[in-house]
């Protein structure tokens, strides 16, 4: 079993609801807190899920892309074998990559090994923290079944995020990846991320600057 999240880049509107709900749940959750360095001044601290915003191409054919980026729960997670104490580990039963804070020495080697820059260092506790796929929610049998999913998936207003088992060919996430050419980030580095993204649909035909000026003149 490999639990994972698939994000449809056509549906993500960059609202950062997933980023905030991750921080909110995990600051109070079993694996928290997700600390801020100056919470009552200028919040500047740890986020386990960051929405990167990017502009592509040149005017007038520019487009904006939002990329929610958290732990990819890699199949060949490079953060795991480098860890000297075994604090970083990948669960055999569901593929989730976790950090055992009791065993961590804060050497930060795993942060260098992770190609995606999703591990962050908690200066106060001296340990490395990262997305747990909300393992404390998905395994909590006291929660209603619809609540046993990651906070980011549950809070997404556009349903851009889907949670499920990528090793089950019949699951929704597997079908989405297979049918919509789901891709993982930085495949050249060999981590085999389980988190996938569904590519944006092709842009409508390109326009040149004169066409835009003409259309604006006609309209106004």
């Amino acid at each position: 079993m490999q639990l994972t999240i698939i994000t449809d880049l056509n549906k993500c509107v960059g609202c950062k609801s997933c980023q905030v709900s991750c921080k909110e749940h995990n600051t109070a959750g079993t694996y928290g807190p997700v600390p801020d360095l100056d919470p009552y001044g200028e919040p500047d601290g740890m986020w386990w899920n960051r929405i990167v915003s990017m502009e592509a191409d040149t005017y007038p054919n520019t487009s904006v892309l939002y990329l929610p980026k958290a732990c990819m729960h890699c199949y060949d997670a490079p953060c795991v074998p480098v860890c000297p104490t075994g604090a970083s580990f990948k669960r055999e039963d569901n593929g989730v990559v976790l950090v055992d804070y009791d065993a961590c020495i804060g050497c930060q080697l795993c942060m260098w090994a992770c190609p995606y820059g999703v591990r962050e260092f908690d200066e106060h506790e001296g340990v490395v923290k990262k997305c747990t796929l909300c393992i404390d929610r998905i395994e909590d049998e006291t929660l209603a079944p619809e609540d046993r999913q990651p906070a980011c998936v549950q809070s997404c207003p556009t349903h851009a995020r889907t949670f499920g088992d990528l090793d089950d060919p019949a699951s929704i996430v597997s079908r989405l990846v297979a049918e919509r050419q789901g891709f993982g980030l930085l495949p050249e580095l060999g981590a085999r991320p389980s988190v996938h993204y569904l590519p944006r649909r092709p842009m409508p035909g390109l326009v040149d600057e004169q066409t835009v000026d003409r259309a604006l003149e006609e309209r106004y």
Partner: protein
Amino acid sequence: MRPTWPLLLMTGLQGLSGGMLVTMALLGLTLGSHALSLGAWSLMSLTSLALVGAGGTSSIFHMHRLAGARLVMRRLRTSWLSREVLTTTLLGLATACTALIPRLFSPAPDWYLPLAIAAASLALVALFVTAMIYATIPAMLSWHSPLTVVTMMGTGLLGGAVWADAEWLLAGPRSPVASAVLAGLLRAALILWSFFKILQFRTFAEARTQIRAETGFGLSRSPHRLLDTGTTRAPYRTQTQVWPPIGRARRHVLQGVLAALGLALFILVGMKTSSALLAAAIAVTPLTYVERWLFFADATHSSLVWFPAPYAEAVQRGERTRA
């Protein structure tokens, strides 16, 4: 990425100590153990012990949570860092034996040379293991190369040899032939080391161009402009590997300093007087640390694709947000 002082100290001092041990063993093997006075053996082995001891102590400060320290050798099967703890501890013990024997026995027993050779072999293994920590991380684009092992071991061996050369002469007179041969060998080693360093600078330059927006964003259209890294501030305090790049001017100044120190070293080791060799030992120390600082500070991590250089440099200049 951000260089941290415990790592700089630990890797630099371990290299110098290992280099001294290897030089001592080679001198003993080629010239016979009695070519070196007991004073020379003592001085070199005590210095080597002090260096490895200081390096080992500084590594403790690299741990931010000591409660987990009892587990550091749990992943010997996969983690080069676990292996480093083992090999550097063994090296410390072997160096201690090498340093203590000349104090306990006079003259040194017959088995002292085999012991020094065993300690030197262990030093080579320890230097290799330490370098492999850095060379085996694919995400550290600048380091993921055999050149990391060659230059890291090379810096330690060269530095240790220069120190050993100076201490040998300080401990007493030696034959002019031995001085001349040693000077020639050190100069040849310096030229070889410079060649591999230049190759490594090229690898670092290539790494800076390797991060691809296409595979980092799943976006085929270029150019790309980063609008927002996820929060108002990039995570430089919590993610040391995306620490702002050092910038071209600073890099070139430090590379120039390295070249000047290398040239000074080349001249000094050929002068064969004890004051010149002492100056060479002094010069090789900043050379080691400029080299090591650049190795860490100028390295490119793959996740920098989400924190591009213009943004990072603006942060470093204080124009955007504090780092």
